[in-house]
């Protein structure tokens, strides 16, 4: 895969592995932000001049489950949302999502599982302890955020229902109720919203079902009470307000792919080298920042997930 080494990438993101290890020595016991700022010029020079193999730019996270990057302001993360069930303007979800009743809530687990059934959400969640995951979120519209989610690995939940060997995909469905979701009264999308993952993507440790963010219960406009988070894919894959998880043999239909197959693929992996037909995906605007930054392959999670797509032409299967 071709990885661009653009000088516009922030130094903190193109730190090579050995530099990174040295940085840890410097930084032990020091404040990350302060030391990072002081070191930035040194690292920038090092990154430009040093002859080195094309290290994956995605290696910046010491811990992929919790990026060091500064989380987006909670205020912005809750007032700038794409959740067409409440309107197509990004300020609509905050204004209209109050009408969604998130309890009682049940989720149907169906399809290729030994123990299918419909289960109350609280019962579904009870055996698990939510973990905090600080992930980058890259929207297909070329903006991004950093969100501290609270969630449960999807794999842990799926395993409880004992998927059969025929389960090759996981399909998800959002609530369909125009009373609670006024945006569903206009047919901008074919409701209900549906999404899907390949089973290995669904079972990947980075993939979670989120129930909260910023240490709080998930706000309605962010997909309460239960949403998917797949950090290496464009945001529209991370379906909100889930009522059904179905294990399937074949690739399930997905909403945006059905809407515009040329523009939105089933995989929808974040990829700066494959532009959206109508706009560039090379760069993104991090909400709260002025200048655009380079978009990273697999949204910076290439080290964790690139192997899932070995041998696949990512330009064809975008």
């Amino acid at each position, binding site marked *: 895969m071709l990885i661009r080494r653009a000088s516009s990438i922030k130094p903190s993101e193109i730190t090579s592995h050995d530099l990174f290890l040295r940085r840890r020595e410097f930084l032990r016991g020091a404040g990350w932000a302060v030391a990072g700022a002081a070191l930035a010029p040194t690292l920038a020079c090092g990154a430009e001049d040093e002859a080195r193999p094309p290290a994956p730019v995605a290696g910046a996270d010491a811990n992929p489950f919790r990026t060091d990057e500064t989380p987006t302001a909670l205020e912005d993360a809750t007032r*700038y949302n794409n959740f067409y069930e409440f309107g197509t303007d*990004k300020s609509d979800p905050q204004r209209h999502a109050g009408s969604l009743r998130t309890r009682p809530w049940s989720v149907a687990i169906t399809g290729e599982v030994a123990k299918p059934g419909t289960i109350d959400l609280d019962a579904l969640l009870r055996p698990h302890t939510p973990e905090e995951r600080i992930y980058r979120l890259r929207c297909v519209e070329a*903006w991004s955020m950093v969100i501290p989610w609270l969630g449960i690995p999807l794999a842990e939940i799926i395993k409880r229902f004992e998927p059969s060997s025929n389960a090759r995909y996981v399909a998800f469905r959002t609530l369909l109720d125009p009373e609670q979701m006024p945006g569903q009264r206009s047919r901008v999308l074919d409701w209900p919203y549906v999404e899907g993952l390949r089973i290995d993507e669904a079972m990947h440790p980075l993939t979670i079902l989120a129930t909260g963010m910023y240490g709080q219960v998930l706000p309605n406009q962010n997909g309460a009470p239960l949403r998917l988070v797949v950090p290496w894919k464009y945001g529209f894959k991370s379906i909100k307000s889930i009522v059904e998880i179905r294990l399937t043999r074949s690739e399930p239909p997905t909403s945006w792919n059905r809407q*515009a197959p040329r523009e939105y693929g089933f995989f929808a992996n974040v990829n700066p080298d494959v532009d959206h037909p109508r706009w560039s995906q090379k760069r993104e605007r991090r909400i709260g920042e002025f200048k*655009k930054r380079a978009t990273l392959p697999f949204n910076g999670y290439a080290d964790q997930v690139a192997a899932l797509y070995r041998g696949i032409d990512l330009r064809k299967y975008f």
Partner: protein
Amino acid sequence: MMNPARRNRALQCTAIAVGLLPAAALIIAALTDDLGANPIERVTHVTGDWTLRFLLSSLAVTPLRRLFGWSWVAPLRRTLGLTAFGYACSHFLTYLVLDHFFDWRSIVEDVLERRYVTAGFSGFLCLVLLAATSTRAMMQRLGRRWASLHRLAYLAAVLGVIHFLWLAKADLREPLVYAAVLTLLLGLRLGFRLVRSRSRKPSPKAAKSQISGA
């Protein structure tokens, strides 16, 4: 009663003041940190919206004059057109400076490869030509060609609406409203033209009957 020159002046000043209101609201929002989570996107959208609104308003002047005989609205055409140009400039500058920060490579790529940018940019170039030839001196210098040149206003509006239609993700309702208004305005022009050509060139039969009647 006010003399026509003073009335025109007053009308144009009012139009300019009204035209500046959205810009003022945007500046106040910027100063009070009230532009939302993505301020650059907000400024881009607002300046783009008002470009289209003022452009369509300027194209509505002549139909209003002809349909209702409101000759007093005529001087507004240029004022509204120039207001649209002002918003188009802010829209373009927002794109150039705030959105792309002079990243010429990606701007050129955008203009050449992204059809909605191509449409928007071409529309903007039309407006530049129109604004540059909007003075009385230019009008006199160009003479008859001025009117033909200024038909570019329709092209600019068509390109502007197409720009909006092509960038929409799934919800076409808002751009379609602009498209409907534009279609109506263009349809009216066509209607006027038909009526005029009929009244100018009476059919041979009508001409004959006129003669015999005389």
